[in-house]
């Protein structure tokens, strides 16, 4: 499985031959294995000062492991790290930081009850003559940092009061505050809006100008084209190849990543049927969203677009009875339903794949099978005892159908890649044989190959008559999959667009509630 064979797509597989201390950081033949897994196999990477090196690859390709080695969280089994030509080894994250390598992690690591300034200077608080924390100086330093980065936040505000996007900006500011030579960003834009992305890119431009080297992990092709000087591609724990900015080509990158040609990302869709399955009128949740109305037909995919915090997830949770509505009506097959409990929602044929896999999706310490079967246990229990054989067969069948890559159903789900975890969770819901499938960011943080599989599955399910609601922040996905697109802005529906009138521009206008230019 460890494919180190050269890619067949005519891209450069050799590293540039130019040598000497022109590299800030070099990774030479690093191999790392964990019990049961070879995570990285003989990997190399080089970062030049004043450039952005993008890192792409499917989930499980080894990018995050490599970054954790660079940041001192893991130690390589073999191979070495060179910083400005000098071999180094980091036993702890602190050692890496002190050597000038900072990392913005994919998961936010902030303390919600502490202030922004306290979070940023945690562990290196400025002290006064009495060896006490000098809060005034800490706040001043934070203000200066924010000024430099053009971030408009109050250093004394608690982090818990910030939006996810705000927290991400704090995390970015914190990483910059170390004034490191090498800055690793692990999918920094997965939770922020276009406005903050533009802001981040301007910060990156400043850092480049200051001669810093940036390693930027992302799944998003447009970001790579926007900021990267070079792109390195990883697959199955191996370094596949490099493209530089002047000769970058999206299709080539994708096929390097998946190791095969992706014929079409979005599958053909069949026209929805006439029968209305779910009908929502004037649905609202006090202080969160209001006036949501739509009809959902069998076989239809309704996309819900909008910025972070527009209330899309809240609508999904209200439909599913997690947070019962404070006003409005939900009808299923024409029957009004007082949706106040997820159990009821499941009985009525609804399913909800939640936005945050880790927080509300997986049971991290349980097996793949235990994660799948949890929704259907009542159907497979006689006098309380679980019918193990039948459940096992069903889960095995779902695993095959959804192509969940796992050594066995007994494998602890936390050991699977994001895409495979997501497929297992999808299996969990498909086993309930729902009629309305609500997907909240179904492809967040998963790789292109798994994305294509999930799109294909959604199309198949819709063709069989399942009604699908798909919440997504990725516009191409919403536009590529939906029959209609409902756009939300600050808790209100700003428009429902038919497939042929839904363009990126129209959706963005409605999502940001900017008046139309026409």
């Amino acid at each position, binding site marked *: 499985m460890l494919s180190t064979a050269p890619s067949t797509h005519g891209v450069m597989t050799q590293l540039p031959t130019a040598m000497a201390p022109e590299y800030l950081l070099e990774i030479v033949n690093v191999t790392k294995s964990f019990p049961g897994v070879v995570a990285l196999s003989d990997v190399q990477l080089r970062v030049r000062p004043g450039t952005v090196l993008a890192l792409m690859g499917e989930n499980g390709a080894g990018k995050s492991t490599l970054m954790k080695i660079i940041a001192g969280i893991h130690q390589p089994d073999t191979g070495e790290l060179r910083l400005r030509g000098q071999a180094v080894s980091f036993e702890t994250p602190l050692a890496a930081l002190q050597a000038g390598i900072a990392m913005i992690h994919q998961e936010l690591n902030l303390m919600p009850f502490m202030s922004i300034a306290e979070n940023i200077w945690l562990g290196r608080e400025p002290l006064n003559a009495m060896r006490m924390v000098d809060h005034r100086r800490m706040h001043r330093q934070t203000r200066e940092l924010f000024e430099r980065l053009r971030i408009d936040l109050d250093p004394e505000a608690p982090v818990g009061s910030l939006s996810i996007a705000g927290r991400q900006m704090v995390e970015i500011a914190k990483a910059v505050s170390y004034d490191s030579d090498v800055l690793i960003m692990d999918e920094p834009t997965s939770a922020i809006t276009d406005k903050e992305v533009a802001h981040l890119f301007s910060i990156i431009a400043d850092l480049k100008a200051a001669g810093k080297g940036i390693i930027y992990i992302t799944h998003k092709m447009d970001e790579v084209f926007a900021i990267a000087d070079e792109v390195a591609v990883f697959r199955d724990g191996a370094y596949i190849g490099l493209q530089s900015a002047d000769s970058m080509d999206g299709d080539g990158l994708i096929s390097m990543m998946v190791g095969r040609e992706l014929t079409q990302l979005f599958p053909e869709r069949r026209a929805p049927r006439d029968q209305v399955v779910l009908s929502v009128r004037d649905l609202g949740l006090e202080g969160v969203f209001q006036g949501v109305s739509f009809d959902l037909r069998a076989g239809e995919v309704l996309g819900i677009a909008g910025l972070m915090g527009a209330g899309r997830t809240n609508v999904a949770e209200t439909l599913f009875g997690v947070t019962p509505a404070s006003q409005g009506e939900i009808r299923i097959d024409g029957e009004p339903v007082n949706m106040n409990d997820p159990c009821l929602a499941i009985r009525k044929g609804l399913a909800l794949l939640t936005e945050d896999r880790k927080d509300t999706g997986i049971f*991290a310490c349980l097996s793949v099978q235990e994660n799948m079967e949890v929704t259907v246990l009542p159907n497979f229990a006689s006098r309380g005892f679980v019918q193990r054989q039948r459940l096992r067969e069903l889960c095995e069948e779902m695993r095959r159908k959804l192509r969940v*890559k796992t050594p066995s159903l*007994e494998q602890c789900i936390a050991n699977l890649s994001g895409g495979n975890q997501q497929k297992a969770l999808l299996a969990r819901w498909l086993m309930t044989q729902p009629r309305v499938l609500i997907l909240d960011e179904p492809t967040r943080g998963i790789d292109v190959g798994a994305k294509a599989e999930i799109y294909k599955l959604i199309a198949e399910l819709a063709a069989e008559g399942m009604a699908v609601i798909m919440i997504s922040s990725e516009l191409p996905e919403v536009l590529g999959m939906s029959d209609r697109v409902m756009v939300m802005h600050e808790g209100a529906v700003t428009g429902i667009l038919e497939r042929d009138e839904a363009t990126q521009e129209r959706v963005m206008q409605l999502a940001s509630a900017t008046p139309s230019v026409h």
Partner: protein
Amino acid sequence: MSAILEKSPLANLSLWSRRLPAELSILLVLIGIGLVFELFGWVMRDQSFLMNSQRLVLMILQVSVIGLLAIGVTQVIITTGIDLSSGSVLALSAMVAASLAQTSEFGRAVFPALTDLPAWVPVMAGIGVGLLAGLVNGSLIAATGIPPFIVTLGMMVSARGLARYYTEGQPISMLSDSYTAIGSGAMPVIIFLVVAAIFHIALRYTKYGKYTYAIGGNMQAARISGINVKRHLIIVYSIAGLLAGLAGVVASARAATGQAGMGLSYELDAIAAAVIGGTSLAGGMGRITGTVIGALILGVMASGFTFLGVDAYIQDIIKGVIIVVAVVVDQYRNKRKVKR
């Protein structure tokens, strides 16, 4: 990374080791401790520690009561909760049960009109009191969202108070033979093992068990998966209460008396047994077999130290160290299992 897993020989190895019960290591620890005492026994006292059936029987008898509590608390801990009240609930149940188990030969019975009752009456009363206490714990936790630590801390103090108030501190004695039979001979051990088997099966093979692990693994995901989390928590705490009640019955029958001071700080031994047995305080992980072995380890240590004549204070010091070491080892093991 999963793609790489399929062909790697290491993957088969990890699969194989997964099939080995996690309790094996803790069982080895138990055997090891036993052998150490055996060795010290020959060196220091010139006699065998293990080849003494009387001592072993006594030890297992002592383990039974704490073991019953530990089975309940294990399930609570799996849901990420904690039960500090089990020792006090034991005492309250023992008092109530004993008060209904007195013989009429005794002039100063608590309820002179209620003497010479068939044994099932006090037994049911004791179990019922425990169930009720657990129901209160669970309902408060589910309905108000107050942390289990606080709710069961309150119950721990109140139940102990109630146990003392019940007879104003007087012990209850002169219990009927049919009642004390429950605590004589090997009965406590049989009850303990039967209960352990029941909940071992319940946790592994029933919907109840699957839901318990799911709630402990991720409460929010469990709710969205259609599990009635609140109802299930009430059930789990009620079961823990019921088992504390049963432990109270067994303890009072064995001692042939009900005393308000019974089971003092047993809740901590029960938690220790669960934790030594591999139950994770972070929830979602734990097994009854592990807890049973954990309880046996505590029992072997107490018995062994007494056998060697080690000072009681020093026994406690060593016990504390063992508990912490068990948790450290457990965390190390979990980290290896979950992290890639």
